């Protein structure tokens, strides 16, 4: 378990692709530089979508936590 304290969380569990990534992008849009946003997603596609977008946008994917039936992505806004 990470000890990162997120500044905001997006719970996109149950959403189909590209919902989780779009929810994350929406939250990052309104965040401050340096804020960490946590995305909760049970969509497998998020495991590739989120790292690819984070790299493209210059944000940093700090870690991905595997939970029982979903993943938690921690993304820091550049």
């Amino acid at each position, binding site marked *: 378990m990470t000890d990162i304290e997120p500044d905001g969380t997006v719970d996109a569990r149950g959403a189909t*692709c*590209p919902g989780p990534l*779009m929810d994350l992008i929406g939250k990052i849009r309104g965040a401050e530089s340096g804020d960490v946003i946590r995305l909760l997603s049970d969509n497998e596609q998020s495991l590739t*979508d989120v790292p*690819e977008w984070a790299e493209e*946008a210059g944000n940093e994917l700090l870690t991905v936590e595997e939970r029982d039936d979903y993943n938690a992505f921690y993304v820091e806004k550049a």
Partner: protein
Amino acid sequence: MTEHVVIVGGGTGGTVLANDLADRLEPELDAGDVRVTLVNDDPDHVYKPVWLYVPFGQRELDDGRRRLADLVDDAIDLRIGRVSDIDTESQRLQFHGSAPSVGYDYLVLATGSTLEPDQIPGLTEDGHNYYSESGATELRDELLSFTEGDLVLSVIGTPHMCPAAPLEFVFMADDWLRERGLREDVDITYTYPIQRVHGNPHIAEWARPIMEERDIQVETFFNAESVDPETETITSMEGTELDYDLLVAIPPHRGIDLIEEAGLGDDGWVDVDKHTLEAEAAENVYALGDTADTGVPNAGSVAHYQAGVVGQRLASEIRGRPATATYDGKTLCFIETGMDAASFVEFDYENPPSPAPPSEKLHWSKLAYNESYWLTARGLL
């Protein structure tokens, strides 16, 4: 005791449902055991797909408007007014102005999407769209006199109404400009927020080669951050900057604030069971069409199919029987691929779309459906 069903929203979902209930519950309505009220804030019903054709001078706004009173069965109480509060505890709606409140036994929310261009600085000043009546006419005025330069279509955020429409617009613009001998003088660029050209991977795989063939430039992972009307540039969160001479943008969408205020879901979309369409956070509340957060496209066909499911479920509940009808995610769309060709897709929660080869026959099928849509609204088709 009379059971009262209140439907809020007179778009495709609400209107089809009202007529479905008028038919399905005819004996109960005649006997006064059931009352159905359809609430809308406009006396007209608007068929939005017409707007795609307005910028190309092919349709007029009036082609997409009819009086709700002419479309809805006489057994339905039609109320023109704007809801100001949804209280799911006392099962009551308040209205703006001095209109009396209304109690319900069953509530169906079909309030659709609203546009929020102000989320993106500069977009309201210089961005055009065909997702509103004013937008479609203003874009028509620009497009009809546009003869050279950079035409950028930017999809800003999802979900938005009719996920196929941005693809349709660039395909139609490409073909329309070719027909007029202007295509060599116009560069078309299409931007999309994720790493492909459409949210559905199957449709994206189908559309991408067509875009390459037609020399439509593509910028993926492009989430518009701001528009600068002075320099005519649009900049993305990912750091890409595009010059434009004509910017067509699909603005950010959301539902209505009342839904969030009532605790039914975020961003104005109602959290529902995606099969039963029942609200997660309140009893006796359904949502359908764009309003229901099911993950399927915000499309008229979805609202149409969902209305049939909600109609069956409500009739069962009112008759004291178990409600067994469920929505399977069925979606059906024509996709224009030019001025005289279209494709067609049909899919659901389990089965992905497989776009049909574009043909003139499908294009005419789409135009024919647009004309016969009014039969759908009346509950006949």
